[in-house]
């Protein structure tokens, strides 16, 4: 369960949690077969499947929370730990591999100080590998927050990382 190591730290108060969950729960109230859509909305709201939000959702659906995790852990789209402000994806598909993806991945790992699937302690960067982005003509592909970088932008990655890292954390980024 590599991605399900469990971050216990939650900085959200019970009141805030209830307030942020209420519209999501209301939208799906009484609807059958809505677990996945509901979890997607929860992830959209919190950035990941916040453990206390999961407990509240389970209570609202009258399901054991283990059942929700059983569903969520099946899909790679769900995250169980907070993710960084910037999600950097390196494509490791065949075309990108041939065009040098392993070297790019290694360089990003070194510059960010994290491995694939991990998030930096300051919650600024998450590094992920993907199997194909669907634009192999642009290989090797790197994307930031789902925007594919061109070759010129890729060369400026190191500088971008330093700029982002130096930026003062805002409350949005969370204290860690």
């Amino acid at each position, binding site marked *: *369960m590599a991605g399900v190591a469990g971050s216990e730290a939650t900085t959200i108060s019970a009141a805030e949690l209830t307030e942020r969950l209420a519209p999501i729960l209301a939208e799906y109230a009484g609807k059958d077969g809505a677990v996945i859509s509901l979890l997607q909305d929860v992830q959209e709201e919190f950035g990941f499947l916040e453990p206390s939000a999961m407990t509240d959702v389970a209570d609202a659906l009258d399901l*054991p929370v*283990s059942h929700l*995790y*059983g569903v969520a*852990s099946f899909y790679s789209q769900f995250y*169980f730990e907070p993710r960084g402000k910037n999600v950097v994806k390196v494509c490791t598909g065949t075309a990108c591999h041939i065009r040098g993806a392993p070297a790019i991945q290694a360089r990003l790992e070194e510059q960010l100080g994290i491995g694939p699937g991990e998030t930096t302690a300051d919650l600024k960067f998450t590094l992920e590998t993907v199997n194909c982005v669907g634009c192999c003509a642009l290989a090797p592909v790197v994307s930031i927050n789902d925007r594919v970088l061109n070759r010129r932008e890729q060369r400026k990655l190191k500088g971008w990382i330093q700029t982002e890292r130096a930026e003062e954390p805002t409350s949005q980024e969370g204290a860690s």
Partner: protein
Amino acid sequence: MAKEITLHIDGQPVTVPEGTKILQAAESIGIEIPRLCYFEGLPASGSCRLCLVEIEGQSRLAVSCTQRVKEGMAVLTASDRVLRSRRFILELIWSTHDGDCTTCEKAGACDLQRYTYDLDVDKEKYGLYAPDEIPSDLGDPLLERNLRLCILCGRCIRACREKSQGILDFMERGMSTIVTTSLNRPLAESGCDFCGSCIEVCPVGCLVERDRKLRGREWEFESVETLCGHCNLGCTQVIDLAHGEIVRTRPGADGYLCVRGKFGWDYLSSDDRLTAPLVRNGDSLQETTWAEALARAAEGLAGAGSVAGLVGPNVTNETVKAFGELLATSFGSQDVGFTGGGVPFGALSTFGGLKALAGVGDVEKAKKILAIGPSLAEGFPRARLAIKRAVDAGAKLIVVDPNESELAAIATLHLKPKAGAEAALLTAIGKALVDGDLHNAEAEGVAEAIPAIRELGVPDAGVSPEAIAEAAKLFAKGKGVVVSSALTCDVLSRSAGLLMLTGRKKGALLPLHPSANPWAGVLLSAGASGDGAKGIYALGTDPVAAGEPPNADFLVVQDLFLTKTAEMADVVLPLRAFAEEEGTVVGAGGKLIAVNAAAPSDLPANWQILADLADAAGKPLPYKSIRDVRAAAKETISAVKGSLAFPSMNGAGDSEELRPYERFELPEPSWVARSQIRRGGSAAGVSEAKEEVAA
């Protein structure tokens, strides 16, 4: 009556009710279809595919645990095609089952091992895929989860959902699938209540009790069934011995034990148990022979002039009877008091015949349940399960508890009385029943009670009149029970009053007590105080720990351990634990239930010790064997069981402080230190038929 369906299985005709599954139809004529995910009593999932059978005329094999029988069906359970497919499935299971039957605890009782042998399966056909990351022990207390042996049958997931907290599920997918908790947290952080229901259904060695490890193989086990002694709900319990020592306990026919029944047996083999009599020599107690100790006890009690006896709630009827007889015959005392651990059981004798007592079966069948008291679900998990099952089947649940709780969350109505006002609330509900004409005017004793109840003022319980009226309306009709972990005299007598008003006289009241035989003392002893007695004999009870130190010139204590009271005693005698004694108890449903000596003991039987003491006093008991004591106990119980009546509803004194059952704390995550289970318990055994005294 369901329609009957006739079909052929392996050429044999069989007729079963419509809706029966093929697997069960086969079982009814003695044909066992192999299965790994199916488990009787759990919902079928049809996922292991081992129970595939061939149905004539169908091109695909059918899953026999989920497919219903059809008229004229011809089923083959062991055709070449079926066997080929079964072998293939087992070969695949072996490709991820990192097991070694030579060292596995489950060897001999493992379904995978058995089918592998039966079908001559090639275990290594597909090699082994078991990456090192899969843990062989998740480090939980009490039980080991070895995921390298898990075959993903999902039985534990379903057992946990059906019987406990539902904390397990399949996580991840494909070859990475494992069965674990949310976020793979330790059991203790996942809401596990350690009932061990998952262990009982695991077909392989993935889930095993830590205590049994390396203590013996399954085929060496000697098993005796008895009653669990950790509360009065009467779950059957099987004690497994290997090489003369307890290595495991497991549920009997009921299929469920809570954490205390499942894991709380270590006190039986504790090194701190008293194994020899002790006598006082100045400031210290010294070990001595039985003859010396009994002579000292007999002499001391006889010389004290007036003698009183105290007996605890965790011994058999026979022990209580022989104890009372000993005091009467040998020491001329009628003064035998019963100590229930802070519970006013003496008062219960005014309270309702044994017939009125409910068992878990009555709760599960009830349509209306009034559950009173704090920590009910936590303290009595079997009661929680019974209530949950009833609610799932449509029962209305009224919870009386000042706090939020697991039961409150599933209640139709949750009443939160202010502290200590439970009894007042019950009185108010009773008055609401009468004022709303919801009571059963025909029921015995009701007509006489009504005028007084109409006169009553509504006591202030901190609950709104609307909620009280709703409770009265909810509870008024249908098969109803009151389950209470609050054991004050007030709460119990008001509960009885509510039942009387609604005309419920049988199987309706379930007081929950953390001992196996809380009624015996009430039924078998004269019920006295011990005030002023110069000699006191305390058997299976520790008044010092309960804050009521006995004041006597001569004190005899008979118990499992050197208790605080025993430390003060002049003579200390060892006691056989409940699980070590043959005899009977008065069970939760008011039934007389026989229990076995399931755990080994080197001590004489308790009644024998008492008889020997009578001999030492020169006034022998009229018993030659345990049969004689049993007959005498039964006679006494039969004589008094019908003479008890419901009390009236009126009366004041609602302020009595509740003394809730002390909550059982889960053991620390270090599995070695696991003896936090209350010492007072014991386990017993049921083997013989249950006799209904109440009927």
